[in-house]
């Protein structure tokens, strides 16, 4: 019994110390003024790696999710004779929820895991240490551009996801199932509010982008520099990011849309 209590205490201490380390890590990354001449090319390179290279999976997933929404929405709404509302249903679902959340989950799996593995391998092969010994802070040179790139790329990817999803929903709803195009777009325009829906969705994706990128770079930087350690850190990135995104989504939805 005492051993169990001790183990529980150790777990608690580990969690608290991990939060403390990641907080200090974040302060180290964000502290200091970046030099645009050196920082901007590094940021561009990372935006390409985490943003542009994630486009394919985001576009394809957005398209299919929009098409599925169109199909499911039509089936359900036609029972009530209100299939014309399919446009607003697809748009609200994507812009408020699925756009930011699914993009964040895909981002964690595609770009987050790659960031963790890359940084972990740089640590294991002493590249980060050698940078320190050359008088270059790896937190600013290696970690900061990756963190900012994730932070910037996520909202853009989420918007692209939603746009492609709406287009996929239109393909199925209008072109295939024959919903009137005017009511598809008209209902959507009249019910989707820019501030309440679009902006709140973008805020969600900004928060998710920050959290996913933070978890990914921290797990890479803090990993045990062995093959098993990198493998475990990569898994943690995907698991923690997914849980954090889903948990935060509930909190943000409650704050943004909860009418208490």
């Amino acid at each position, binding site marked *: 019994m005492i051993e169990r209590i001790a183990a529980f205490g150790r777990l608690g201490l580990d969690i608290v110390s991990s939060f403390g380390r990641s907080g200090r890590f974040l302060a180290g990354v964000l502290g200091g003024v970046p030099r645009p001449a050196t920082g901007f090319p590094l940021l561009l390179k990372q935006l390409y790696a985490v943003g542009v290279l994630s486009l394919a999976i985001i576009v394809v997933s957005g398209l299919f999710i929009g098409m599925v929404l169109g199909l499911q929405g039509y089936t359900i709404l036609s029972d009530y004779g209100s299939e014309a509302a399919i446009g607003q249903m697809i748009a609200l679902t994507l812009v408020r929820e699925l756009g930011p959340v699914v993009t964040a989950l895909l981002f964690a799996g595609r770009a987050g895991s790659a960031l963790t593995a890359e940084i972990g391998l740089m640590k294991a*092969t*002493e*590249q980060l*240490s050698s940078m320190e*010994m*050359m*008088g270059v802070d790896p937190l600013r040179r290696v970690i900061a551009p990756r963190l900012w790139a994730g932070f910037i790329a996520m909202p853009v990817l989420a918007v692209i996801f939603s746009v492609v999803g709406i287009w996929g929903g239109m393909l199925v709803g209008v072109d295939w199932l024959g919903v009137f195009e005017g009511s598809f777009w008209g209902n959507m325009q009249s019910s989707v509010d820019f501030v309440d829906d679009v902006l709140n969705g973008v805020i969600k994706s900004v928060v998710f982008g920050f959290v996913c990128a933070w978890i990914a770079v921290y797990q890479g930087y803090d990993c045990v520099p062995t093959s098993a350690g990198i493998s475990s850190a990569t898994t943690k990135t995907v698991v923690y990011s997914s849980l954090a995104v889903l948990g935060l989504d509930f909190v943000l939805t409650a704050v943004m849309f909860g009418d208490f």
Partner: protein
Amino acid sequence: MDSPAYISLKDVVFSRSGRRIFDGVSLDIPRGKITAIMGPSGTGKTTLLRLIGGQLKPDSGSVVVDGHEVPKLRRKALYSLREKMGMLFQSGALFTDLSVFENVAFPLRVHTKLPEDMIRDIVLMKLEAVGLRGARQLMPSELSGGMTRRVALARSISLDPELIMYDEPFAGQDPIAMGVLVKLIRDLNSSMGLTSVLVSHDVPESLSICHYACIISDGKVIGEGTPEELRAHPSGKVQQFLQGQPDGPVPFHYPAEGAAQDFGLSGGVS
């Protein structure tokens, strides 16, 4: 020692994961000479280099490099001190996304505002010094182990440091690559007037080039002096290490319970 110390460690105590790595190590590393730090694997030789470079802080004791108390330096001062240090890592630690040329140019691009043509000339001169001017366009994945270390060596001297630290430079090298590295370390030290610290357990190679050597074991310095003084050292542990004897003061067997008990022999075994 006839020259003033460039690095001075005094009563350094350092523990990691509850294990004491150094238990009061004191050591002076002379300026402009090659000093070899030797010892069995796992004695913390690399840790010693990290203490000198300020990547780790001792629990107690002082680490002074060129008059600066390293553990007490603030971040900015530490990073500017590191610009005077070069370190050759065991793995080479080349940046895998940069070519050989860009790896060697990296410290110059970060720390200087030299024009591109001057950076090119310096990089080619450094690569020429390690015999790899022709390999400038290769990527690190295309290099052999020995070439990787030579490129890393060129990178570590690109800013013309005062101090260079070699972490196990000979480990896993074939005889030719080893000979090349021995020559490079010796030539660089004499031509650039560097202070060199060489961490290794390759006894013949290290003793052949160093001016001064010390052996660390069980968290303490067990022997130090010139190579000749070490060869004549009275300590059995020092002699066992230098001559590579499998048994001696450092036992062959890891401490274990009685063999009879482990093998289930009630009659006992000798």
